[in-house]
């Protein structure tokens, strides 16, 4: 059942009905017991009264039977035309077994055969409850009885009186419950309408104070989702804005150099300007590529492919890819596969992320190497990780900058103006996704960037 309204309605109707039926059953049982008690007491009282009347000789025993029925108080549940008259029947039998007297309503046959107390008998197809009392003085037995059918009718009438209005009221109750549930759920409808009317950029939280307590957990969860989405959007927006700003400087450089090339008459100035334009285009396209990489790493948060990646092989591939840059910078890359590289250098993870880590670290090393410098790559397989160490002879990263180098667009306080300031933040993000880590070491000859990939 997918509608809260129908669900609530069904539950309420079922429980109301059940309570009602239970109450009716209870009342039935207690009424039955009470009626039994009251009528039994009446039987007893009537029998004793007849017995005492005839003992005192106030009434002739032959007439006494009628006194019992005539003296009874009006029936307690008299209804109009209900037919509760002549409830009691009285017989007086001699102890020898002859009928001395009987009331008008009493049958001719003996109501009961017992001598004392209550008994239920069946006479002419009718069930009777009879009280017998023996009058030893006169040697008679007084029997007073009433028809059980009348008792049952009495109880049945009480229950009917209870259930009939219930059956009439039930549809009214159902309609009221249906409307009330609808009203009760109105806050949900209001929230839904409020949310449906929002535009994509309206990520402000729903006011949890104005919603019913029961919906608050949902609203809180929703608000927290809104918060996360808004945060991601803000991050994206500020990143886009920042990226656009960062691209403006190389664009300004390109434009200025182009204008210089256009207006100069000196071939050497023109050649210089054009070669700078070419360099700037290379750098700017690297920056654009890194921006795309960064977006890719950001997006990889959701999908993580889990494939086998051989780090040693991948380092070789990346170094080969960077051959152009190596030649341009006159840098030599030496691969060092350590002796312990016997255990496989395979990890499980996203190949694209691993490649980004290796490529950016190698590119950094190459770019910061001195002319004719050397870059060394070591791949070390350990028990629970594969470690890649990239050594270069460049100036390295100053201790005080180490914490900030992985910030986007941070270029170091004495930057050379080559980099985009994105490389290490890509490395850091990709390693974080892979569960790895990035550390730096400064040696006498080498600056070492270490990336650890968990196996």
């Amino acid at each position, binding site marked *: 059942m997918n509608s809260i309204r129908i669900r609530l309605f069904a539950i309420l109707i079922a429980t109301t009905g059940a309570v009602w039926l239970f109450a009716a059953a209870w009342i039935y049982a207690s009424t039955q017991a009470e009626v039994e008690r009251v009528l039994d007491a009446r039987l007893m009282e009537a029998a004793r009264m007849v017995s005492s009347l005839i003992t005192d000789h106030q009434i002739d025993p032959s007439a006494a039977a009628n006194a019992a029925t005539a003296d009874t108080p009006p029936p307690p549940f008299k209804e109009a035309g209900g037919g509760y008259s002549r409830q009691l029947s009285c017989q007086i039998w001699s102890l020898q077994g002859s009928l001395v007297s009987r009331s008008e309503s009493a049958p001719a046959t003996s109501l009961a055969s017992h001598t004392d107390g209550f008994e239920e008998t069946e006479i002419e197809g009718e069930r009777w409850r009879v009280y017998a009392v023996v009058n030893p003085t006169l040697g008679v037995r007084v029997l007073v009885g009433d028809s059980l059918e009348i008792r049952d009718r009495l109880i049945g009438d009480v229950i009917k009186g209870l259930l009939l209005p219930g059956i009439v009221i039930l549809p009214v109750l159902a309609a009221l419950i249906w409307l009330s549930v609808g009203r009760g759920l109105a806050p949900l409808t209001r929230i839904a309408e409020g949310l449906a009317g929002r535009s994509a950029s309206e990520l402000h939280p729903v006011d949890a104070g104005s919603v019913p307590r029961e919906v608050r957990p949902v609203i809180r969860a929703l608000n927290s989702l809104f918060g996360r989405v808004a945060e991601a959007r803000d991050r994206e927006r500020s990143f886009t804005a920042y990226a656009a*700003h960062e691209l403006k400087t190389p664009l300004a*450089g390109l*434009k*200025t150099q182009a*204008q210089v090339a256009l207006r100069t008459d000196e071939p050497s100035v023109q050649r210089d300007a054009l070669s700078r334009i070419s360099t700037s285009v290379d750098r700017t396209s690297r920056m654009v590529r890194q921006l795309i990489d960064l977006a890719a790493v950001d997006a990889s948060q959701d999908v993580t492919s889990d494939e086998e990646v051989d780090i040693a092989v991948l380092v070789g591939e990346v170094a080969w890819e960077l051959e152009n840059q190596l030649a341009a910078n006159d840098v030599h890359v030496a691969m060092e596969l350590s002796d312990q590289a016997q255990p496989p250098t395979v990890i499980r993870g996203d190949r694209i992320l691993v490649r980004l880590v290796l490529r950016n670290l190698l590119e950094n090393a190459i770019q910061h190497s001195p002319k004719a410098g050397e870059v060394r790559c070591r791949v070390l397989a350990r028990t629970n990780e594969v470690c890649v160490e990239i050594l270069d002879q460049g100036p390295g990263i100053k201790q005080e900058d180490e914490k900030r180098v992985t910030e986007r667009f941070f270029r170091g306080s*004495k930057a050379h103006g080559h980099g985009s300031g994105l490389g290490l933040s890509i490395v850091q993000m990709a390693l974080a996704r892979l569960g790895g880590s990035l550390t730096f070491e400064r040696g006498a000859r080498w600056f070492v960037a270490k990336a650890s990939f968990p196996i």
Partner: protein
Amino acid sequence: MRLLVVEDDEILLDGLKVGLQMCGFTVDAVTSVADADAAIEADRFDAVILDLMLPDGTGLDVLARMRRSGDRTPVLLLTAKDEVADRIAGLDSGADDYLGKPFDLDEVAARLRAIVRRGHGRATGLLEWKDVSLDPARMSASRDGMAISLSRREFVILQALMETPGVILSRSNLEEKLYGWQEEIESNTVEVHVHKLRSKLGASFIETVRGAGYRLRAAQ
């Protein structure tokens, strides 16, 4: 006019340097806040072009230190962040003008001339003295309406003198305007160019104040 350009992107810096030299400016260039502070401390510039985002700080700090020390050199801010709030912050910190990247070289030159001119309290770009008028925007000069052809250095010297008529400029003052840091100062250059200017503008146009320097001769 001698400029200091503070910009950390080497390609843009080179472009500005070469381009502005072609527009008749003498350009010195630095790439960091520390170098900019040192240069401003040590030398006098007619204007400073200041990038806001530098590797070791922000150009606004340089600007604030200049203004605090009473340096009124006109400053043109260059920045990639060209939102209104940034522009307001820049101008309020004492900048004379503001230009968002990327920009047109001619616009940079025009704005530089404008802020320098305002610094001298002049409303128009045209410099006039007696029958000679000088148009820094076009790097052209005329006498009695007839165009005179001037070399870049002749132009720089004439412009310096005409910007502060009556004020004596020493030889080293004029050399500062002619040469950047990397350039070798040739001895007698100022004398040679003043001589050439006199032959084009009339012998009495520039007066030599013995032991002090040069100035434009006041009208008799």
